[in-house]
């Protein structure tokens, strides 16, 4: 392994004064062999410290020259079965990170001295790992305390990437489905894993959100895990993702579901109801074949989440 500290001469040099360049030869099979890890700056007590972030594991030093060695050590300890993690689960309050590795179509979450949780779907692995961590007290009480947060790993910088949105099914009486969606490394597509395979949609000015939803819904229906394709909803979109999608939709006024007001949109294939989540600065969508279907789906979901919902729905 070769590790070097390289000065950043770009316009971002003030916040990222260096990069650690790691050349990892013959160690990993599905990632590149060269990584360029940004070195950030934090100011503490009037002093300056330099920081790196490798798959969520952060290290700091007063001397940037020490960071290549530290980064090399971190990468070495994270290589498992000749792979670097493609995701991590984060138990934020407990301060724990669980690397998740991908082999073919399966993802594996490893735990120190414990089980390996393996499934084709990240959501299942998250559920199994979450239950285990509840049992051993890392996550506290199930359902009322900390949850596992998922992040993708950028295999160029080894930094973490947030999902751009999620695909989620929560229908009373049916099995849940949840899958984080990430942007591909080249920025040309969005992808997720569902029904035992990677599902992808090319970036199309925002419509990729609905395109990927349709692809995954079809796969889940073929798998017998989804009865109605519109029960699968794009959830917690990043604001810029929503803005891009919004430009491709036709506004259709709004509807009230009890105290909630949902702006409505239509596209050639589906109607969309928007549920803003201001506390997270995210946007969730309800979809259906028409306005009434969107309203009914929203009402059912609000009821499931414990919100009082009026029996009569009023179009605004």
């Amino acid at each position, binding site marked *: 392994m070769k590790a070097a500290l390289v000065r950043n001469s770009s316009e971002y040099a003030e916040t990222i004064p260096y990069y650690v360049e790691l050349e990892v030869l013959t160690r990993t099979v599905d990632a590149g062999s060269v990584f360029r890890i940004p070195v950030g700056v934090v100011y503490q007590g009037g002093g300056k410290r330099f920081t790196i*972030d490798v798959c*969520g*594991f*952060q*290290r700091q030093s007063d001397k940037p020259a020490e960071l290549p060695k530290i980064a090399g*050590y*971190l990468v070495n*300890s*994270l290589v498992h079965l000749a792979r670097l993690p493609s995701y991590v689960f*984060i138990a*934020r309050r407990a*301060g*724990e*990170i669980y*690397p998740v590795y991908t082999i073919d179509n399966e993802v594996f979450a490893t*735990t*120190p*001295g*414990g*089980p*390996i*949780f*393996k499934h084709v779907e990240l959501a299942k692995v998250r*559920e*199994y790992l979450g*239950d*285990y961590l509840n*049992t*051993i007290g890392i996550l506290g009480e199930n359902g009322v305390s900390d949850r596992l*947060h998922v*992040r993708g790993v950028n295999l160029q910088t080894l930094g*973490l990437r*947030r999902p751009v949105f999620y695909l989620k099914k929560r229908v009373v009486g049916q099995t849940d489905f949840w899958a984080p969606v990430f942007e591909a490394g080249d920025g040309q597509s969005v992808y997720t894993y569902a029904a035992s395979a990677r599902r992808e949609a090319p970036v199309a000015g925002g419509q990729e959100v609905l395109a990927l939803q349709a692809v995954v819904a079809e796969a889940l229906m073929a798998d017998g895990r989804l009865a109605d394709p519109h029960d699968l909803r794009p959830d917690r979109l990043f604001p810029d993702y929503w803005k891009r999608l919004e430009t491709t939709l036709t506004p259709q006024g709004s509807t009230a579901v009890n105290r909630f007001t949902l702006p409505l949109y239509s596209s050639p294939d589906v109607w969309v109801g928007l549920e803003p989540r201001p506390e*997270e600065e995210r946007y969730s969508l309800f979809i259906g074949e028409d306005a009434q279907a969107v309203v009914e789906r929203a009402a059912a979901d609000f009821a499931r989440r414990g919100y009082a919902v009026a029996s009569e729905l009023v179009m605004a």
Partner: protein
Amino acid sequence: MFKFDKKRWIRVLLVGMSMGLLMVFSSSAMAQEETAVTTDQIVIQIDTIWLFIGAFLVFWMQAGFAMVESGFSRSKNAANLLMKNLMDFCMGTLLFFAIGFGLMYGTSAGGFIGTTNFFLSELDPGAIDPYSWVDFLFQLMFAAASATIVSGAVAERLKFKSYLVYSVVMTAFIYPISGHWHWGGGWLFNLGFIDFAGSTIVHAVGGFAALAAAWVLGPRIGKFNKDGSSNVIPGHSLTLAALGVFILWMGWFGFNSGSTLSGMNPGIAYIAVTTTLAAAASTTSALLVNWFKAGHPSTEMALNGSLAGLVAITAGAANVTPTGAILIGFIAGGVLVYGLDLIERVLKVDDPVGAVAVHGLNGMWGTIAVGLFAAPSVGLLTGMGEISGLLYGGGFAQLGVQVLGTVVIAAWAFVTMGALFYIMKVTMGIRVSPKEELEGLDISEHFTSSYPEFGPAAADVVTITSGD
């Protein structure tokens, strides 16, 4: 002044030693001239040496079990498993000497239980009877082998003291009593039951005791998900596990060929051949069946496949043809693969090393297989008698006895051991606390570490950098 001459003193020492050896050998030669060695004495001595070799090989299997079980378990529990394999042998030795051997081979009371020879009271150290002593040693090794099967199934969560209690009861009572029914000349022997070296007597007893123990004990933390699916909890060293399998395979030559109890038996090499053929066939079939089922050739499955074949052939090694041995082995591989599924996915029992499928189910299969594959010509060669299985024109009679014997003995082990573990559970407790289970039994039970020079991974200590 005295001067020490090293060379001179060495010469004196060598001359003295030579004279001494000469005197010893001449007196020995004179004694031999006085007492002619009879053919019977030579035969006894050959049999004794043969059984010694067998006993040593079976003893060596204890090391094999230790390696397999520790290899298939996590590193934080390795020392605990080594201790269990050591201590069940030691406790077993004392208890089998005091009680077990008498219950198994003492004078029979109604064909159900031995009643004499406790503490080897019928053996006279002054008598020139080396065979009786080595016979005890050989049988002791089998008792220990049966007991140690359970340690793998209860690995990583059973309290050490509970395991010691179990070892005492197993080697003192459970194994010897059912063993008496056949090898002690009891009721199964009289029915014509055949279990040459112990597919049922040793392995199914251990396997079904393991099933009862693992069932009462419950699964390891994290083994099963809420939806009933199971997770892999990988062992720490397939290298150790593979070494253990090779040791066991080697030991099995003593287990099976040694069970002729005589080096003069013309079938000893034949039995070694059937033993190896079955093991090779079972390894191959376990690999292939699992490959077909799971899509990859599993190392763990192949290793357990070897043991499954060895267990299965143990009952019929002296009764079946080489072809029969291969068929028994091939089926044993399938029994293993689907047996593991049955135990884990249907019964939801956590058996970290696969002891129940390897020893319990294949012990039963191998014993029943004698009723199918026993060939009269082989029985004549090995001294087992002219026994014919169903496929050799013997009808269903032998098959029926085989089924009866193996079911009754398996049930005996399961029920008695289930009761024992349940009683221990509600009295002294059998399971370590969740905290102890997580930190590993090496430190919580033995205050040691099998691999002290391996530090924790850097990834254990982290700072979260990314908010939501």
